[in-house]
């Protein structure tokens, strides 16, 4: 039994905002199935009482003095924008017709 179906891959692509083609779905479904079956090996390890590690070094909050320091200028911040207008990022519409 496959670990993941073609429909599930299509769902993942939607969640990840990837407008994949039908041809890609055919290829990815097989490849993701092979990868997931292989990485599922982590389940063989008895680790019920083992704490998870998210980071190799202990993480603590890092604080700094609350003082103003130079940041990017508006021009710098917009320098890589696909489109800018009136000193702002111009984006496609974010609300649907019915909203």
């Amino acid at each position, binding site marked *: 039994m496959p670990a*993941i179906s073609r429909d599930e891959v299509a769902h993942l692509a939607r969640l990840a*905002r990837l407008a994949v083609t039908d041809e890609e779905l055919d290829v990815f479904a097989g490849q993701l199935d*092979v990868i997931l079956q292989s990485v599922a090996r982590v389940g063989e390890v008895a*680790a019920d009482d083992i704490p998870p590690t998210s980071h*190799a*070094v202990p993480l603590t909050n890092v604080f700094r003095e609350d003082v103003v320091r130079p940041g990017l200028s508006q021009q710098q911040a917009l320098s890589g924008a696909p489109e800018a207008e009136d000193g702002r990022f111009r984006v496609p519409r974010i609300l649907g017709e019915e909203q």
Partner: protein
Amino acid sequence: MGDLTRLTAAELAAKVHSREVSAVEVAQAHLDRIAAVDGRVHAFLHVDAEGALAAARAVDEALDSGEAPASPLAGVPLALKDVFATRDMPTTCGSKILDGWVPPYDATVTRRLREAGVVILGKTNMDEFAMGSSTENSAYGPTRNPWDLDRIPGGSGGGSSAALAAFEAPLAIGTDTGGSIRQPGAVTGTVGAKPTYGGVSRYGLVAFSSSLDQGGPCGRTVLDTALLHEVIAGHDPLDSTSIDAPVPPVVAAAREGAAGDLTGVRVGVVREFAGEGYQPGVLAAFHAAVEQLRALGAEIVEVSCPHFTYALPAYYLIAPSECSSNLARFDAMRYGLRVGDDGSRSAEDVMALTREAGFGPEVKRRIMIGTYALSSGYYDAYYGQAQKVRTLISRDFAAAFERVDVLVSPTTPTTAFRIGERVDDPMAMYLSDLCTIPANLAGNAAMSVPCGLAEEDGLPVGLQIMAPAMRDHRMYRVAAAYEVARDAGAGRFADRAPELGA
């Protein structure tokens, strides 16, 4: 004057600092070499001749006016992996989604290189967003291995390793998330070090898997690599995971090691990294290297790290999970590519069309695997379990380092494979990282140093040396001692690569 491109970084620095040659001459010699051979190697995505010559001129002027060199590497050229932000050069990460993007700021690594007077020649090719082991996942075409142009130079930092092996630069910067410095070093006969996680700032390093990503130095010799390590390492308040402690004394260790005495050093051979899937010539070169270490006075101990065999599956859950989150920033709104914005489509549709057009297949696969592993219902079995395995791998290291000072293994199970050989089989590609991944998961230091050529194909083999966290100097000492013994009477290893001609 001889061929400046054949000299080590340390030799070049000595000549520049003594004013025997100018930094401009050194930079020009490397730019000429790039012009002559990079059409075939394709190590660089962007060469900044003007910027390099200007930086070299500034070094010359400072030295001529009597100033001390800004660093031991002032005036030495370097190839920078295209994953570090540079305000005067494009930063693409090998991806179409960042085609032509020039960041408005420098990475901390970039800034430290500039302040040290290191001359940045350009940006090197890489697997897209550092995901890959062959540099074939670059959207700009593969890089070729100077030892055999039909073969891969490793990945993701194949551009940096190939630039070194082709004598286009004496120094390079890489990043190592699962082996992307060490595996390219191994297959191109060059040296690459992954410092302790947190040892080199990640500020301005475009994120792939934040808990694993680590920038580091690459060179053709152990000393050059150590000199570069000290230039880029050290605490950075702009990276919250940066370690606030003195940089391990890696240069002193490399010099100490070069004396060729490893008496009293305990070297552990990892039992699990051998057997099926390992090329006989790789194992033979590795075993010869271990015998060499024994001859240098090291005590050789076999060590078992039973959970290392689960490092690969754990990594290929953790890294994609973090990547699926990190790469969400490529949303077609603030920088980079935008596709399908026809005035009627929604932001969400434009986002999906842009990511479809801008990302290559491996990036898409990893984003989807990560999205899956983080989904409710699968989280505990996949991501959660992988994090527990990560704990057990760290414990294996801790137990091993109770008994030995460093661990050794082959860097990668095979020599450089042929371009195209593994592109359609992601799992086969992933196996390239089998031996390098544990050090990323545990965060300790590890490096690769060339250890001869495999009998069956005459291609370079890498010896991996792993050290405890913040004990980076230990591996440099062992590597430098080994390097001297390896080259005794045989000349420098890198010079054994076939001539590319010009």
